[in-house]
């Protein structure tokens, strides 16, 4: 086979179209945002570099989701990883960036190694890297080989997607990139891993083994819970958003995994529904996560701070940013009538329907997954109450926060655009879900009108046979507005116009109050730290400096959690590796001359004694 004569043809089936649409939908506002964000922040040379890398980044992502050849896929996948690595280390002066970048590049290459291996396994059977040929060959592949290929693909793409326990790079790498890139990385790049899972596991490999789907569902549950639990206690706003990405990837994988379970159980209707729900949450997360990252970037641009403990009260100087951030937070907390609600509701419906249609252990497992998803939703809401409340409400807690100014229009218009998308994707969920259905149907090769999950153009009805649940987001929106108007009128009628006392925020009329009285992020997450102490393994340290027995001059309070995965998995590997390296270094002389001399001797030896062998 001539490797240089690659088939450069692209595929534009509905799945690829969907991802191309998502990439452009998120990247373009982020690119516009970067005009304002990069200005005055970097030198003009570096801005030029940032634009060059951005074009390369978006281009490589577009190619990843459209090429029809596994080898080309790998090449563009690698370009995408490398360019995003350069973005992670974009602030070259920051030691943290370099460290995060190294961790990222190690993890992503580990993942790519697994993908390469699985591709080579598939190549062995197909003798071609073309998707279609591989798909044909996979029908003849023995089951255990299929299992190996599946596991390798899952590890490979899971690393990119940030599934626990290989999520370790994500919360370090995403916050270190410039904010518009964090938005693209969290909003789009990690979604290409989901594309990989759908394309290679569901479409090419054919998800016909039951435990595959269940494995993905279990990993999704773990990712959801652990992602949101870490997000909840995080005080760095961008890191918080990055952890929340881990959680949302879990929710997306709930849809994908459930779809695989249903296919192997022979329930194509539910499989289509589940995959559509996953894709719906995927695009929704792309929109609101990039919006939130842009909001965090605006806050960083205005104050130079990422620690929410030092922010506060930003709603007054930065109203536009605050409103956009609020809409994003509401969407990610799955509040109706926004888009996050629609997709999380659908995912829950998928799991409930799964529990109804399956039997035995599978039904119980489905209930368990649904419970995990529900608790995740609750924690996510708490997390974003904290993120928004501590950052934008109350009183400013530091000098930069006091002097914050609204960002230039080029930065808040993209955020408005994304906020509008959130509302649109919520209100028109029925139509959007219909088109998502077409994607999943084409993927599974079914095309029937019975697979219609919406009645009329405003109501989603997941499955009309067993549960008669339906959801109409416009109706909810109208009801919410009506209730608000009624409450307002009732207050006006019964309480009268009343006299308004204006006072400082959260002061309750008390005369002397300052920002130190406000609720902090650490304090907000305290109940969760106590409730989940078995997982966080909190350690506290209080230090009092007293001038006399009765008078305490100052108190220092320090709290920290044990990063379980880092400590018990990665540090262990790290330690063992270094131990082994130290042991092996006894065999090394360290002299380059000696090493070359060994080669030299070997060659001379071979030349002299050639005829003996």
């Amino acid at each position, binding site marked *: 086979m001539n490797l*240089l004569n690659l088939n450069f043809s692209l595929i534009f089936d509905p799945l690829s179209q969907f991802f191309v649409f998502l990439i452009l939908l998120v990247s373009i506002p982020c690119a516009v945002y970067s005009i304002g964000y990069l200005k005055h922040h970097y030198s003009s040379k570096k801005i030029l570099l940032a634009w060059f890398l951005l074009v390369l980044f978006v281009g490589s992502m577009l190619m990843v989701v459209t090429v029809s050849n596994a080898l080309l896929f790998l090449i563009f996948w690698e370009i995408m990883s490398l360019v995003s690595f350069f973005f992670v280390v974009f602030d070259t002066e920051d030691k943290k960036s370099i460290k995060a970048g190294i961790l990222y590049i190690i993890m992503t290459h580990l993942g790519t190694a697994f993908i390469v291996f699985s591709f080579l396994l598939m190549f062995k059977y197909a003798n071609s890297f073309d998707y279609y040929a591989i798909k044909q060959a996979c029908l003849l592949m023995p089951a255990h080989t299929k299992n190996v290929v599946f596991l390798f693909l899952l590890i490979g793409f899971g690393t990119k997607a940030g599934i626990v326990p290989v999520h370790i790079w994500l919360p370090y790498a995403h916050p270190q990139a410039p904010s518009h890139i964090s938005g693209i990385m969290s909003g789009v790049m990690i979604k290409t891993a989901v594309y990989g899972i759908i394309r290679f596991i569901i479409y090419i490999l054919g998800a016909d083994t039951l435990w595959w789907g269940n494995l993905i569902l279990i990993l999704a549950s773990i990712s959801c819970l652990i992602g949101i639990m870490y997000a909840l206690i995080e005080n760095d706003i961008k890191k918080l958003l990055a952890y929340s990405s881990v959680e949302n990837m879990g929710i997306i994988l709930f849809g994908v995994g459930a779809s695989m379970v249903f296919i192997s159980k022979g329930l194509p209707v539910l499989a289509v529904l589940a995959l559509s729900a996953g894709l719906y949450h995927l695009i929704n997360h792309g929109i609101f996560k990039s919006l939130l990252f842009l909001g965090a970037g605006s806050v960083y641009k205005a104050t130079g701070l990422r620690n929410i403990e030092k922010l506060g009260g930003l709603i007054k100087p930065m109203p536009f940013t605050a409103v956009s951030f609020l809409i994003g937070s509401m969407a990610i907390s799955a509040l109706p009538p926004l888009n996050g609600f629609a997709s999380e509701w659908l995912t829950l419906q998928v799991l409930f329907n799964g529990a109804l249609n399956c039997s035995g252990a599978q039904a119980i497992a489905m209930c368990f997954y649904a419970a995990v998803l529900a608790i995740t939703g609750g924690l996510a809401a708490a997390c974003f109450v904290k993120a928004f409340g501590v950052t934008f409400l109350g009183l400013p807690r530091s000098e930069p926060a006091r002097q914050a100014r609204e960002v230039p229009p080029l930065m808040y218009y993209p955020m408005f655009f994304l906020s509008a998308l959130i509302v649109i994707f919520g209100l028109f969920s029925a139509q959007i879900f219909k088109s998502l259905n077409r994607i999943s149907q084409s993927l599974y090769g079914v095309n029937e009108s019975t697979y219609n999950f919406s009645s009329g153009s405003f109501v989603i009805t997941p499955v009309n046979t067993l549960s008669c649940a339906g959801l109409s987001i416009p109706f909810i929106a109208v009801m919410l507005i009506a209730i608000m108007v009624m409450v307002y009128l009732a207050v006006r009628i019964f309480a009268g116009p009343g006299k308004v006392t204006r006072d400082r925020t959260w002061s309750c009329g008390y005369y002397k109050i300052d920002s130190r009285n406000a609720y902090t992020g650490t304090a907000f997450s305290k109940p969760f730290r106590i409730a989940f102490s078995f997982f966080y393994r909190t350690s506290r340290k209080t230090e009092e400096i007293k001038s006399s027995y009765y008078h305490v001059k100052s108190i220092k309070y320090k709290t920290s959690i044990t990063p379980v995965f880092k400590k018990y998995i990665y540090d262990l590997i790290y330690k063992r590796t270094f131990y082994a*390296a*130290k042991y092996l*270094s006894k065999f*090394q*002389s*360290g*002299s*380059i*001359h000696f090493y*070359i*001399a060994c*080669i*030299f001797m070997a*060659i*001379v030896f071979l*030349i*002299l004694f*050639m*005829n003996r062998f």
Partner: protein
Amino acid sequence: MNLLVIIIFVLTLMLVLSKRTVALINGFMLQSFCLFVLALTRAVWAKDSELYVVAALILLLKVGLIPYFLRWMVKKIKIDDNLGLSINPMLSLVIAVLLSFFSYLFAERIMGLQNKPDVAAFSVSLSVILIGIFIMVFRMKAVAQVIGLLVIENGSFLTAVALCGSIPFFVEIAIFFDIFVFAIILGIFIFRINKLFTHIDIDKLKTLRG
């Protein structure tokens, strides 16, 4: 053809004899130039358009850019010009001649006595490779390691051109870019060594061992 091969052989011996860094670089440049002429004559003779490109690349990279870069680097880091020989020139020459004798024996054994010119070309290219390794082993300064490896590459190219006409075009191009990137990376590496240890004597790298 044969004349060029012999010139290359003499130049290689000159590399062994050179005591100074600049002399080493100059020797390499001359050797590469001969290689260029060789490739060009081959190209004209075989009317091979790909070989023209290869010859042009030799001229550009090995005669032009890499020696220029190395010279610039030597000037920049201001090391003393001594290569740090661990075997003196005369003994080195004796060893080099011995090495070429071995390679002649080897070439003869493989190809037989009937085609003398080919045996000569093959033994010369083999001894160029061996002498390249010799330079890498018995010269202390890091620049010598770079030149040594480039000489090895020249030797393998000579083998290919002298015996088979040419290597597949893409392989050749890939090797060229490899070599170029290699020279630059090692150049940067030498800078770093110089900064860290204030000299580029790679024997001292032993201290890096954990």
